[in-house]
Every structure is written in C-alpha cells, then in structure tokens.
C-alpha cells in the first residue's frame, strides 16, 4: 500500500510540474499584454510604458520570466497583481474562501440529494415517479446555469422579494451580533446554491440510479432477499453500498470541477469568488492572478484524483496495487 501511495504521489508531483509550465506559457502566448491594457487611454508616453513593462518584468525573455516565477512560487510568493497592485496570495485566498463556502454547501447538497433521488428512482424503476425524476433532472441539466440563476432571481428576489439579488452580504447592513451576519450570509447563499443544485443534481441522480439498477439485478441481491432481510436493509446495505464506486469517481470529478466551474453562478449572483476573479483577470490580462488560480485548480484536480484512487482502494480491495 505504501508503495502504491508513493508511486501515485510521484505522478502527482510530475503532473503539477507539467501544469506549472503549461499554465505559464499558455497565458503569456495569449494575444494582448497587461501593459497595453493599462496604457490604453492613459496618455502614457513610450518611456512610462517601458518603465511599467520593466517593473513587471515583462521585458525579460520568457524563460527567465518563468524561472523567476517558479523561484518566487517556492517562497510562497504568487506574484504581484497588475490590476490590484498588491500581492496575489491574499486576493486569491480570499476568493477561494468565498468560493469554498458556496461550493462546499452546494456540492454536499448535490451529492446527498442526487444519490438520494437516484436511489429512490431506482427502487421505483419503471414507475411514473422514476420517469418523472429522471426527466425532471435531465431538463434542469440541459438548462444554462446563468439562465436558471436569472430565473431564480426574478422569482425569489424581484417578484417575491424573499431573498437578496446578489452578493455575499447586504452592503449597508448593521449586524448587532455575529449570528445575524451568518444569517445574512445564509440568505445570500440560498439562490446560488439552488441554481447549482438544480442544474448539477442530474449527474448524481443518473449515475447512482443506473449503478444501483445494475447492482439490484446481481445474484447476491436475490440471496439477500432470500435470507429474509428487510427490503430497506437489502437496498441500503447490499445495494447502495455496492453501487457507490461510480459515485465516488463522479464526486472527485465534480468537486474538482466546481472549484473553477462556478464562473456562471458567481457572475450571475455577484459572488466574489474564484470564478469572478478569473473572469476579471482574463479580461485584464492579469497573468499572476490567472496563474495562481489555475495552479490551485490543478492542485485540486490532482489531489481529488489522488484521493479517489485511495478511496477506490479502500472501498474495493480488488483494485490492484500496481
């Protein structure tokens, strides 16, 4: 097992190194450069532009820019944001925190509700309930996230006035206690979470349903029923547990995708997270922020894969240790 983990760790490091290099090269090959962006419309003369360029190290050849970048990275320095004119680390950390609040809650809901509904549908295979649930989740899956978001805003925020339109907190709110602040955050969380759950839940409904259906037709299920176990016990202990493997794969993929895949939800609901930060940085060609964000995504994806490799091994001893 230790050897298995060690090898997987080795791959992990190699992958990250490759990601680092690709990230850096890719962004610097994009058309446009931050200095032209800054200089546009600012009456800067050629001197001032040259000084800006040299200040950000953009006048150096690409390879030496890369070496500087990696060297700084090892010191925990993600670089200097062109637009915010401050260190990248704290900006990205703050955005990541905001995103994690949103995606942790919605991911948990998506998985728990998705698997629950999937199991429920599978246990009623072929009934109208089953058909309704599958079609319903497919319909939401096929809707564009930003459109669902706008719809939710229109219904719950504008028409009914129950929930806030956007942001994480009410801009001019007065909080007597920390609990009222948390309640305010929770209110702001409801709509973006709903949007994510509605659109994404189908993946887990469908995967868990089909996986459970396959398991339900196995011989050992008949055996379990023949032993006289209660239907509930047969379903959860013998059925669902064995149907979980594909769900684990889906979970690791989903979790890693949501860290960066919330651009639409964050944009519609003005949630100051990673998605919004990346969007703005791409527009402003803020390479250091983009590099830091994408590095974090890569780390999350690679770690999630690593975790799912290990989880596989724990869930299913048949997975080979080579």
């Amino acid at each position, binding site marked *: 097992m230790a050897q298995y983990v060690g090898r997987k760790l080795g791959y992990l490091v190699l992958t990250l190194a490759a990601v680092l290099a690709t990230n850096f090269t890719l962004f610097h090959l994009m058309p446009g450069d931050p200095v032209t962006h800054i200089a546009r419309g600012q009456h800067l003369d050629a001197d001032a532009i040259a000084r800006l360029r040299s200040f950000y190290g953009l006048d150096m050849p690409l390879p030496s820019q890369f070496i500087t970048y990696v060297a700084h990275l090892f010191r925990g320095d993600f670089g200097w944001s062109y637009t915010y004119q401050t260190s990248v680390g704290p900006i990205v950390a703050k955005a990541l925190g905001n995103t994690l609040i949103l995606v942790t809650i919605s991911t948990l809901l998506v998985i728990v509700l998705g698997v629950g509904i999937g199991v429920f549908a599978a246990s009623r295979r072929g009934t109208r309930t089953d058909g309704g649930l599958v079609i319903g989740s497919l319909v939401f899956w096929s809707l564009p996230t930003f459109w669902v978001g706008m719809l939710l805003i229109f219904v719950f925020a504008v028409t009914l006035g*129950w929930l806030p339109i956007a942001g994480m907190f009410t801009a001019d709110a007065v909080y007597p206690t920390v609990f009222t602040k948390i309640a305010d955050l929770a209110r702001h969380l409801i709509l973006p979470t709903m949007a994510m759950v509605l659109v994404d839940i189908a993946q887990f409904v469908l995967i868990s349903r089909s996986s459970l259906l396959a398991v339900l037709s196995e011989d050992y299920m008949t055996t379990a029923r023949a032993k006289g176990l209660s239907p509930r016990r047969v379903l959860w202990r013998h059925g669902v547990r064995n149907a979980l493997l594909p769900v684990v794969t889906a979970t690791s993929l989903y979790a890693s995708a949501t860290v960066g895949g919330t651009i639409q939800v964050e*944009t519609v609901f003005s949630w100051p997270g990673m998605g919004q930060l990346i969007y703005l940085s791409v527009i402003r060609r803020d390479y250091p922020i983009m590099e830091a964000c994408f590095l974090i995504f890569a780390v999350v994806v690679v770690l999630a894969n690593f975790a799912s490799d290990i989880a596989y091994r724990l869930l299913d001893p048949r997975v080979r240790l080579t």
Partner: protein
Amino acid sequence: MTELNRRGFFRTSAVVAAALGGAAALASCAPKTATRTVLRVGSTTDIDALNPFTAFSTQAYDVFQLVYDKLMEYDAQLNLQPSLATDVEVTEGGKVFTYTLRSAVKWQDGKDFSADDVVFTYLLVRDNNYGTYGAYFKELTEATKVGDNQVRLVYSQPQTLDPAIIIPIVPKHLWEGVSKDDLPKYANEKPIGTGPFTFVSWEKGSVATVARNDGWWGPKPAAEKVTWTKFGSDDVVIQALRNGDIDIVAEVPPTIYTGLKDASNVTSTAMDSFSFHMIGFNCSKEPASKGNRLLLDQSVRQALSCAVSRQQLVELALSGYGEPGADLLPPTFGDFHYTPGPDAVLDNNPGKANDLLDKAGYTERGDDGIRKSKAGALLEFRILAIADTAVDVKAAELFITAAKAVGINLKLSTTDADGMGATVFNTEGPDWDIMVWGWDSAFYDPSYLLGIPTTDQIGGNNDTFWTDARYDELYAQQKTTVDKDARIKIVQEMQALHYAACPYIVMWYQKKLTGNRSDTWTGWQPINGGMILNFPRVNYLDVKPA
C-alpha cells in the same frame, strides 16, 4: 420494493417542513439596513486599486473624489469652483498659477494640512512621471510655497487646463516615506485625504465603502456612507435597482434603458456625454504594417464614410440614445464641437461614395460586384469589434451592409477589449484593417481627445497611425492658446482637417443613461457626462433623503 410507510411519511414531511421553515425564517431575518443614510451605487465594474495616481477604473476615481480634495473642483455646470484652494490667480499669460489655500483643514488622520502637502504632491507626480498624470506636468518647472498659505506653480508654456483640477492632494507625511522604486507598486491600502468621506473598506470584486468625514471643511453631506457594489451583469444590476437594493446605476445599456422607464420608483435620465464611438482605419505606412494598403488611399476611407448613415447607426445600433457623430469633440465641448459644412459632409451619401471610388480608379468589379483596384486587388477588408460591446457589433454589421452597397466587402471578427488593444496598438506591425471602438475624454478639456491622432501619441493613444504635420502643429498651438475664441478657431481647423482625411468615421456621441431610485434620495442633478462617475462630485454631496 421499499414502501413509504406512515412513519416514513411523517419523517419525510418533517424534513421538508423544517427545510421550508428554515428558508422562510432566513428570508424574514433580513438584516437592518440603513437606507436613506447610505447612498448605494451599483455597477458591473469593480474599482481596481486604491492608489489615486495609478488606479484606472472610473469607480476608483469616484472613491478618490470623495476621500481626497483637489485644489479646485467642478460644479454641476462644470465651472471651476474653489475646493482646497479658496482662490487662484493666473498670471504671465497662463504660465503661473498662484493658489490661496483654505486654512484650518485637517487630514483624516488628524494631522494639519498645509502648503507643503500641495507642493509635495505636484513634485511627486512630476519628478516620478507618476502614473496616469505624469504626462500633464512635463512643462511644470517650479512648485513652491509662498508664505504660509499660498502655492505657486510655474510652467514653461501657458496651460489651458487649470492644474488644480488634475490631481488629488495627498498627505506628505504618509507619502514621503514611500521610496522612489516602490512608488509604481504602492498599494495605498488605507487612503487618507482631506475629503468629505473617509475610506472604510474595499472587498475586492464586491463592495467599496466610505463614511462621512464629519470634520470636513465643507457643508455636511446628507449621506452617512457611500457604497459601490459590483454586480455580475447589467441585467442583475438593473434588477437590484428595480428592487431598491441600490440607489443609482450610472451607466445603463441602451437595450435595457427603454424597459427601465416603466419601473416604479425609478427615474431614468439621458445625459450628454464626453464620449464617442468610431470606425477607425489602419493608416500605418510602416513597412511592418500588415494592414490592407488600399486603406491608405484617402478616397477609399472617404467613400466608406459616405456609404454609411450615422443617423441610421444611432437609431438602430444605439436605440436612438445619442447624436450622429462628426469629429473628435462631442457637442458637450460647446463651441469646440465641429459640424462639417454642406460641401464637406461625408455621410449618408452612397452616390458620392460611388463617385469617389470611380474617380480613384476602382471601377472594375469582381464576383458579387466587389470593386477592384487598378492592380486587380479586391476592395475587401477585415473589420474588428469588441464582442461584449453589443452596440459596436451591431454598428459593424450595419456598416458592412452599407459598404457592400458601394462595392466594398468587409469581414467581421470580434475579440475582447484587451485583445483589441493589443491588435490595434501593436506598433511593431499592426495586423488589422478596420476597427470599431470608442473614446471617453479623461478631462474636461479638448486637448485629450484632440491629442489622440497626433504623431506624439504613436505608441500611446494614436490608434489609427494617421499623422499629419499641420495637425500636429495646430495641436501644439491650441494647447497653449489661453484665449478661448482664438483656440476655438484652431480647434475647428484641426477637426475639419481630421474629418476630411477620415482616419475615423465618428459614428455617434452616445448619451449617458442613468437610472436612480426616486424613493430613497432626491435632488439628483443631471450633468453633462453623467450624475456620478463624472468630473464633478456634487451629486454625492448634495442629494437629500427622500
């Protein structure tokens, strides 16, 4: 299989009820908000930095306008009025400015404001060619303290723009500690000024807040706080306005603006602006330029200008919210604005376009009726627009149709704003033919927009690479002509020259479309250029609770 028994039913019902109850409880416990004491601005762009010399976004500019004071400021009619200076004396034909400073002014950290701060600020910007403003102080030869409460600025050339209006005054005691090398990246995380509001916080990508400075020298503003909130899209920010979550949206896109007129408790106002949108031609004569050389022929550019109707562009692309364009200066610049005489007009005249092209020898036609040059090259050009700027893309489409009608074929491609900048301003070999873009005057003075097509600005603002020795000469002349009538004459001649040469087709001068709540704050004054995010700060200071 499993059946929902009674217990299961109750259990499920309880969970659903709890969830709904929880949601309802959360919905009902909205925090107390301080409406009518907080002025809430909504927009889709965030402020970008807190250093008043190096930040670029207009939102940031408004934060600085409230935290800092300048020596002079604009009133709602864009006349200069005293601010940190109570008086200015201009002598030696506009070369020397002597300001008398307001007394007993304090910085927001409690220290006394003095003439030293003013001298320090001007020299800081001049000596370091600092940020956005460095270029405006190249001719400043001297900044000195006169007595205890006067400052004298001496220039080598007469100045048409009062230097008092250009930069905010920053505290010497906080800025002198910043080393020269650190200046470009100085973040100024807690701005301290003498202005009517103190900086409170900036949540990046979300909201910036300032609070009233009760020790300010001027009349106390009614707003206790001002917040600028960033929203993800124009639709959402308008919903927030309709909902009463914010008090004002300074820039509403034309497509949404019409719908806003029916909203309850929302007032919509269309104001003239200091901006234009144009179709620009790559006029670079450099060997490295990858632009289509046929556009160096003035007749082709003039023909394209005649082919299109500016009135139609305004009506169809801009939903009517603007004036048809002529040259660089919008009508908000008063007598400086240029209107071509009947013989000079190059607009909405396909007959003239065809004549121009015929006379210039583009008589042969290829397939689809596209004209050819004498050498046999088709009159076929690329046109580039910013995908997000819907009005420009629509205008480009209309322009393509109009050009086709006179035998010129255009192919549209789109990019983002930065890609546009990199392509258009690429001095090492601009690889584009025609672009659709816009300009907004950074100052209430003709020099900024007039300066765009000067030779000096190649590598800077000159986006068409068009140059003209006479134009450059006139530009330098108007910049130092303090006599307004004389200056108007020069500026008119410059624009006539630029209009006829046609490096730009100025399509329109768009309106600034604003929506504000009528039930929270009243007394919003319409101002040329917009109620807020504009040169004056008066609306922030003067609005009253409804």
